[in-house]
């Protein structure tokens, strides 16, 4: 299956999901829709607990069995429903067509096996290559990640490498089978700022040069804005706003997006007290009715007791806010 630019690789449609806990069902996702097309870089932003990772892990069926339950909506990954695939079919999708880079590089590699063995294992799992050929390929991939002595790193154990180095190995691994789509789940959050920029540019360069689509999950608006073509801003398991990065940043429509952008420490105006969003995420065991951001919103009024639908407010953008919907209708 060769994906043309523009083909929809991942289509998450109105997905709802809950986690069963001792205290009751935590409604983690409440009707999320995200589309990813071949070759594009899509950002998914929001604060911790808003459902960014859960959405993507659910689509990859990587959530722990038993605890998470999908209560509505559908997922199509490369045209098929991952929930209906057998474990074996799923194994051929994962790694081969869609691979994942995780947040914590420190523990994401097996501590008792050499780096080389681990990269080669993934390559040979999905491609018919001899051990020597897979080895050459692995070395090439590591070199692409600007690792200076790839042969030596292949012999190393994970504990001998820094976090940034491990993450580069994991990125090399993620790209090793030329997947169509990569899910990058906060790949730089655990790293030094200096390493962050390098990692981000490595992911971006490799993705652009191979035409790989990337879903970039982050809580950091600044990081996402540098990297992504389009953005989804998530709040409490719903999409608050979506659109092209340029339009969202230029004129954020949803009050939550505005708040997120205001929270960025501005280099232009130093020594200003940092903004913060008052309040916390609503109780997802018993979510209040209406717009879930209402309690923290400066613009909330009586309309907000109803759930605002995610509506087009201009050609490049959709937002779930009654104010914007009214303004659009009035215009």
């Amino acid at each position, binding site marked *: 299956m060769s994906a043309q630019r523009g083909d929809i690789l991942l289509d998450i449609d109105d997905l709802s999901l809950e986690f069963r806990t001792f205290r009751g069902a935590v409604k983690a996702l409440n009707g999320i829709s995200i589309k990813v097309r071949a070759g594009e870089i899509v950002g998914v932003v929001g604060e911790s607990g808003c459902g960014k990772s859960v959405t993507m892990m659910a689509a*990859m069926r*990587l959530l722990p069995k038993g605890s998470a339950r999908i209560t509505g909506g559908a997922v199509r990954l490369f045209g098929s429903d991952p929930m209906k695939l057998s*474990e074996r079919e*799923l*194994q*051929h*999708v*994962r*790694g*081969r067509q869609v*691979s*994942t880079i*995780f947040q*914590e590089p*420190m*523990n*994401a*590699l*097996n*501590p*008792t*096996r*050499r780096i080389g063995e681990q990269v080669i*294992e*993934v390559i040979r*799992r*999905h491609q018919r290559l001899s051990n020597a050929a897979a080895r050459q390929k692995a070395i090439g991939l590591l070199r692409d990640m600007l690792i200076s002595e790839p042969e030596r790193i292949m012999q190393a*154990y994970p*504990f*001998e490498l820094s976090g940034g180095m491990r993450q580069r190995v*994991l990125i090399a*691994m*993620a790209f090793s089978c030329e997947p169509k789509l990569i899910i990058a789940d906060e790949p730089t959050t655990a790293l030094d700022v200096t390493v962050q920029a390098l990692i981000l540019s490595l992911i971006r360069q490799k993705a652009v040069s191979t035409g790989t689509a990337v879903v970039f999950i982050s809580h950091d608006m600044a990081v996402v804005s540098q990297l992504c073509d389009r953005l989804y801003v998530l709040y409490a398991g719903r999409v608050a706003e979506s659109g092209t990065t340029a339009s969202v940043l230029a004129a954020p429509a949803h009050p939550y997006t505005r708040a997120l952008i205001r929270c960025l420490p501005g280099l232009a105006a130093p020594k200003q007290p940092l903004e913060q969003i008052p309040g916390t995420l609503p109780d997802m065991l018993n979510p209040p009715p209406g717009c879930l951001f209402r309690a923290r919103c400066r613009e909330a009024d009586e309309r907000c007791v109803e759930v605002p639908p995610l509506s087009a407010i201009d050609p490049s953008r959709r937002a779930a806010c009654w104010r914007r919907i009214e303004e659009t209708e009035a215009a």
Partner: protein
Amino acid sequence: MSLLSTILRRLVLLAFVVAGVAVVTFTISHLIPGDPAQLIAGDKASAETLAHVRQELGLDKPVTQQFVIYVRQLLSGDLGNSLRTRRPVATDIALFLPATLELGITALFMAILLGVPLGVLSAIFKDGPVDQAARAVSVAGISMPVFWFGLALIIVFYVKIPILPGSARIDLGVIPPPRVTGFFLIDSLVAGDLTAFRSTLYHLVLPAFVLAFANLGIITRQIRASMLDVLQEDYVRTARANGLSRSAIILRHALPNALIPSVTLLGLAFGDLLYGAVLTETIFAWPGMGSYVVSSIQTLDFPAIMGFTIVASLGYVLINLAVDLTYMVLDPQIRELG
């Protein structure tokens, strides 16, 4: 830290441990009431005979001098003469220890070969029927006394359904293989005597299983717990996200890491097995160290008891060394960084 330097360093430490044990055993043997000379000479011996025996045993000399003699003998590998068998204790131990080791090692292998897969399956199918069954086996293994379980097995598999032998190391009609190592399994193979090998194997089944069973439960539970931990690790998620097969994830990624915390337990289990052998050997009339020590204690055979204690402590230190070396093999971080 290289493997070799670890071994050397530990062997030096070993000398200190054995010296400590020698002091303790010597002290205890002199503090315990009971006069070995009286025991040898008998109740009705005259004072003259008693004095003669004392002199022969060196018991008339000052304690410090006795200790010096004792240590000098130890260093030359002489553990003294058994009061009961009248043979050198070292010879006795060389005679009986292989039987115990053969039983203990077989039991350890049995416990590992059954316990590790059972633990892995329990973790993979957590709370499923396999897990429940394994839990029942574990509780039974930990709570059933060896003497009771051993007798029960003898009654079932030897008396009621006579398919397995219930005593001794080898059938009466079979000639034991010529002694090379003292391990019948090895010696019979060396001699090319398959009849003796088969007979030894049959004789090992029940006592080794009884011994293994108690530790089987502990090993299963430990492997299950560490597998459950490891299966939640990020690198297992990485392996899943990269589409590796279930068997590769479990056998190549999870199990090797889950084994690391279990190694200490396996070392302890082996020590336990050697102690458990004392009871098991009595039940199965197994001519090993267990039976030898029990008889020695009953007759206050101090040289034999002291000799056994020294050998046992040596064994424990060596097991600990083996545990540490196993760690180095399994965990590259320990191997490379020490």
